[in-house]
């Protein structure tokens, strides 16, 4: 039977996302954020979520709407506060969202460790700072490192440029950012792609996320202007 990971609707794409889950959300700033999938998760009503994303959203829609919804218990990110991150800022100030701040490179490396079956790794970033407080420190060849643990998720929501029915993906410019590593680090990887292409349309040399990492693909190509 042909492998077909393409689902017809956003609703079908996010089916099964439930209370208490950990969700990775791709994007850096406004580039590469799967806004339609986030909105579908909001409609689904799942709550008590842990979100792993580099930022915490700006404006009133997409990631910001999720942050403001009261459904996110905790966010793991590197840079939550930006101009316009009012939704998150308010919840944070009110003590309604727990924040785990992780250096950006450590954040992506922890995801990769989860994806690659690495049990833990020694990382030079943050040694001696507040962000490494309480972490095991080890000196290796004269340099200090902190022990960092893998970061996995139940679900990854990823925005891509092109996808085929196996789930092979390409991205657009700096919208690639966290997409590939999140796709690898989650149990269930859900993709919104601007274009669906035939299985033989992608050059095997230039696929950036291989089909093995992708579970569901939904086609989203609207001209909607998001307030993000």
């Amino acid at each position, binding site marked *: 039977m042909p492998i077909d990971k393409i689902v017809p609707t956003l609703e079908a794409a996010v089916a099964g996302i439930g209370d208490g889950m950990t969700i990775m959300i791709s994007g850096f700033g406004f580039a590469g954020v799967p806004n339609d999938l986030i909105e579908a998760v909001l409609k689904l009503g799942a709550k008590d979520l842990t979100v792993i994303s580099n930022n915490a959203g700006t404006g009133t829609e997409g990631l910001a709407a999720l942050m403001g919804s009261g459904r996110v218990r905790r966010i793991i990110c590197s840079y939550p506060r930006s101009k316009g991150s009012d939704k998150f800022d308010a919840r944070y100030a009110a003590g309604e969202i727990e924040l785990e701040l992780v250096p950006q490179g450590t954040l992506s490396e922890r995801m990769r460790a989860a994806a690659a079956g690495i049990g833990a790794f020694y990382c030079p970033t943050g040694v001696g700072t507040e962000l490494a407080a309480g972490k095991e420190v080890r000196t290796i060849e004269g340099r200090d490192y902190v022990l960092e643990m893998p970061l996995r998720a139940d679900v990854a929501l990823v925005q891509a440029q092109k996808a085929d029915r196996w789930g092979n993906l390409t991205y657009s410019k700096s919208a690639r950012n966290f997409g590939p590593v999140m796709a690898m680090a989650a149990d269930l990887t859900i993709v919104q792609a601007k274009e669906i292409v035939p*299985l033989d349309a992608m050059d095997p040399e230039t*696929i950036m996320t*291989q089909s093995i990492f992708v579970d569901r693909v939904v086609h989203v190509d609207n001209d909607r202007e998001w307030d993000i």
Partner: protein
Amino acid sequence: MSTAMTADSFTRLTRRQLAWCAAQAIPDGSYVNLGIGVPTLCANVMPADREIVLHSENGVLGFGPAPAAGAEDCDLINASKEYITMRPGGAFFMHTDAFVMIRGGHIDLALLGAFEVSGTGDLANWTTGDRRFPPGVGGAMDLAVGAKAIWVLTEHTTKKGEPKIVDTCKYPLTAAGVVRKIFTDLAEIDVSPDGLVVRAMVEGLTQEALQAMTQPPIRLADDCRVMAAPAG
């Protein structure tokens, strides 16, 4: 069942037939790594009505059978360094990423060769311990700990006729307790928590004869089938 067995009362499968039997057992839609040796032959005998995505640790996903003579591409080989072809949907990537797929638990099934397999699924397939010859581990240990399931494809006995399915591996282990299923040129055997269960045997082979070539106790599944494959 106490009739004397003669050497020619059954016929061993060829390597290609053994590969065929294993290939037909792979679930539709699986992502499957083919290890060095007999496993790589599976790519040539995959069931036509299923879409199974083949992985090779040298950075290839979604490959197909060997090319026609004259159509070989020096840059397109499998883990056994044999020429392959690509299927639509396939992808190339670097070695490190191939092992992200393996070690990270993304591969549904790995088919591996073996020097020895124990009745509890221990696998020895990287060295005989003979210090005159360099050992070679390749990706075997990574696959053994990383793939969601491990099947072994091997001749049932050594060239000297000794069992390769043993009580305890005498060769150094690749990994302990990882093998779930064994395809040999004589039988298909599940490694179950209750011991070895024969799911299929070649025509004319008896349990006694198979047991004589297998160290740990075996028992036949209630629905034990005849193991057969197209000639070739």
